[in-house]
């Protein structure tokens, strides 16, 4: 088949001349960059873009793609080991990955992440290779109403991230949405909560928020541990391998996550955040041990990691077939293409097949390289945890601060990170969950704007929110989730077992009240 021939040429390109070296450098450097708190794929690619300026377009793009996959994996490393995610997509990995590390299963978590990334990446790339043409046009069916429905669904799915008191999770989501409203409003141009600072016109930078909420507040929390002399070095990382029981639990998670990630990636504008979120929700719903989620359920790492990497393949489809970026990282790749003098558009595949297939080929290669490179390195990465507490946290702190600065070459972002560091510390003490907050910040803008766009286009008619099957499906699913969340606790309360428990508790109490 034609496609396979092209793919073969592409993989050959990836090995020709300097290109293989570029892949190696990109993957290696990307992994280290991704480990820095707050630096994930989009910021990693943007930061390392200058490295590629002297290269030819194919070589440059190949290096950037190596960086892309590498930094995704690096982000998982810092999420799992240091509780400081690289960017929004790694936030979800942190929820179960870090508890696993704290229980001494860090090696297994990292290994699982590596395998999941490989499987997800492969599925995504296979999808890109064979399904690019037919799927490309599908993405176009997402207009404002469809986006609103998808974002609503994703936001409701954040409810599955919540542990503990429901009202605190809701507070977290509302606070996140409020943060997302800061800035110049897209539809009207009105300034909202910008306090006359031009730095706030574009809103509060999501990554600065992540760096603050997770990086800096993590350091503050760790100070508590260090000063109370409770800083236990993680004694053992466990074996760098997964137990057979863990493999069994994960096998479908890998596949589920990959498929979900790929499909979400195809929709332009829905990136790693939505992909990992929906995968986590799916894993939780289909798991036999849902109560373990948030405390170290390995499916909570396997699914989202696969989804994250699969979404790359999906996001590249609109980029290569239509010239439209599918996620923030692909948007930077688009910019890179333009800097190299290539005009992305519907003709990219036909006019620059060497470039496109070279990139796809090198992504396959990078995927394999990463798994081979990183599995031996897992031991080294994990030894970082063994460092004494004070210097380790000093490093995290300065990484966070420098990372925040390098986002926009602006010290304002450091201020934002610091403020959110304090806020994060406060919220943690009050047991307000931070992951839903961050996801609400990521999704809030898109949610509100697409709602208002859809209503504008329908002249205020709410029927305009359901103009198509896609919108109806997502809104329907959202309503379903809300109903389930509301009804299930009530039915559980009424179950015979619980009624008996309550009666027993009342009996116990009586002697004490006299």
């Amino acid at each position, binding site marked *: 088949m034609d496609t396979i021939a092209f793919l073969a040429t592409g993989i050959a390109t990836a090995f020709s001349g300097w290109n293989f070296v570029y892949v190696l450098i990109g993957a290696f450097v990307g992994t280290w960059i991704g480990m820095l708190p707050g630096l994930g794929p989009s910021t990693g690619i943007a930061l390392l873009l200058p490295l590629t300026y002297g290269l030819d377009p194919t070589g440059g793009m190949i290096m950037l793609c190596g960086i892309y996959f590498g930094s995704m994996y690096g982000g998982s490393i810092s999420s799992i080991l240091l509780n400081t995610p690289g960017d929004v997509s790694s936030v979800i990995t942190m929820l179960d990955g870090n508890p696993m590390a704290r229980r001494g299963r860090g090696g297994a978590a990292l290994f699982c992440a590596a395998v999941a990334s490989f499987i997800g990446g492969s599925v995504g790339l296979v999808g890109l290779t064979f399904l690019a043409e037919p799927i490309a046009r599908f993405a176009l069916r997402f207009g404002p109403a469809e986006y609103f429905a998808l974002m609503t669904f994703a936001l409701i799915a954040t409810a599955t991230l919540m542990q503990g008191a429901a009202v605190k999770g809701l507070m977290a989501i509302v606070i996140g949405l409020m943060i997302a409203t800061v800035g110049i409003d897209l539809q009207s141009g009105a300034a909202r909560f910008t306090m006359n600072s031009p730095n706030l016109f574009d809103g509060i930078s999501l990554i600065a928020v992540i760096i603050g909420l997770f990086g800096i507040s993590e350091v503050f929390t760790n100070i508590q541990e260090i000063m109370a002399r409770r800083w236990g070095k993680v004694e053992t990382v466990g074996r760098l391998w997964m137990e057979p029981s863990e493999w069994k639990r994960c096998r479908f998670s890998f596949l589920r996550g990959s498929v979900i990630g790929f499909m979400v990636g195809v929709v332009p504008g829905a990136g790693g955040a939505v992909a990992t979120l929906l995968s986590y929700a799916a894993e939780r719903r289909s798991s036999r041990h849902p109560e373990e989620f948030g405390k170290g359920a390995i499916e909570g790492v396997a699914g989202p990691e696969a989804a994250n990497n699969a979404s790359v393949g999906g996001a590249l489809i609109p980029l290569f077939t239509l010239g439209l970026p599918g996620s923030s990282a692909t948007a930077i790749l688009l910019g890179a293409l333009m800097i190299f003098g290539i005009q992305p558009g519907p*003709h990219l595949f036909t006019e620059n097949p060497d470039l496109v297939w070279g990139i796809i080929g090198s992504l396959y290669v990078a995927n394999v390289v990463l798994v081979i490179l990183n599995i031996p390195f897992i031991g080294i990465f994990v030894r970082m945890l063994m460092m004494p507490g004070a210097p380790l946290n000093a490093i995290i702190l300065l990484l966070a601060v420098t990372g925040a600065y390098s986002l926009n070459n602006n010290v304002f972002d450091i201020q934002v990170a610091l403020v959110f560091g304090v806020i994060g510390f406060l919220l943690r003490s009050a047991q307000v969950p931070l992951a839903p907050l961050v996801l609400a910040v990521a999704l809030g803008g898109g949610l509100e704007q697409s709602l208002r766009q859809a209503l504008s286009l329908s002249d205020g008619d709410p029927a305009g929110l359901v103009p198509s099957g896609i919108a109806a499906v997502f809104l329907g699913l959202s309503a379903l989730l809300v109903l389930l969340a509301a009804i299930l606790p009530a039915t559980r309360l009424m179950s015979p077992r619980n009624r008996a428990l309550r009666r027993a508790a009342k009996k116990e109490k009586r002697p004490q009240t006299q």
Partner: protein
Amino acid sequence: MAAFSRIVAMALAVATSAAAAQAAEPTRVIEIIVGASPGGGFDRTARAIERVLEDGIVGQPINVINQPGAGGAVGLASMNRHPGDMHYISIISPNILTDELRGTSPMTFEALTPIATLVSEYLCFAVHADSDLETAADLVAALKEKPEAIRFGFATTPGNHNHVAFAQLAGAVGFDVMKPKTVIFKGASEAVTALLGRHIDFSIAPAASFAEYVRSGDVKCLAVSAPERLGGALSDVPTWTELGYDVVYGPFRGVIGPQGMEPEQIAFWEDALQKMAATEAWKKEVAENYWTENVKGHDETMTFLATERDLLRASLTDLGLLQ
């Protein structure tokens, strides 16, 4: 904090400017500060300038620094922290005028030192290739008869060049610019996606944004707001002037320096940029990006900016964006 640094910087600048009065050449690395992320319009202009100037016109190395934010205002503020220093320049567009008029930025072009205008980027008025609106005349008729039925979408802010062009069309054709359903997208890609997916009927954007899609047959460009026909994929597209409507508008791109530059410094840059505009390499960049040459020196630029500002004031008032 920022004020403190600025005061110290100005003190140093005053001390050194006496010595700099005779110097009219850069003596170290030059920085082009771009108020946008890599890959966008501003950035491409800056890198085009860097590529051509570094090739022998200016003796010093040039760096392009990205400091995005507030549509360019953050980058301009950053550049302006080096008053009187010719080693810092930046790129301007109508954003600087719109921000001043709308009060979103305290900076005015008179407070900085505009050096030159280089190009204008004219706009394509586009519909989906399968749209019922097959010619500009169809579009005009639809806008006059039932403006409320038209779904208009564009990027990136209300009151920007795309929106102003629409207001000018409204004035020339005779429909109420507030009537069509108007939605704004975060970036050019989102607007193109919406048009391709037929979620909007009609969009306006710089020609380069649509050119590839016109070439592939997905988008039809009904007219351009240029003084003359554009080339490349758009050579068959009529201008509004040809069609009988006086709509000639497109965002300019120019070069600006910080406040307090000496006439010799301005003259150096004017000269360098004019040399650059005459090179083959530059003309190639212009053609590839669907720009149109519009070279003006310092004095002409000052007058040009003032007239543009008046024009914008009128359009923004029509759009209800000025109180």
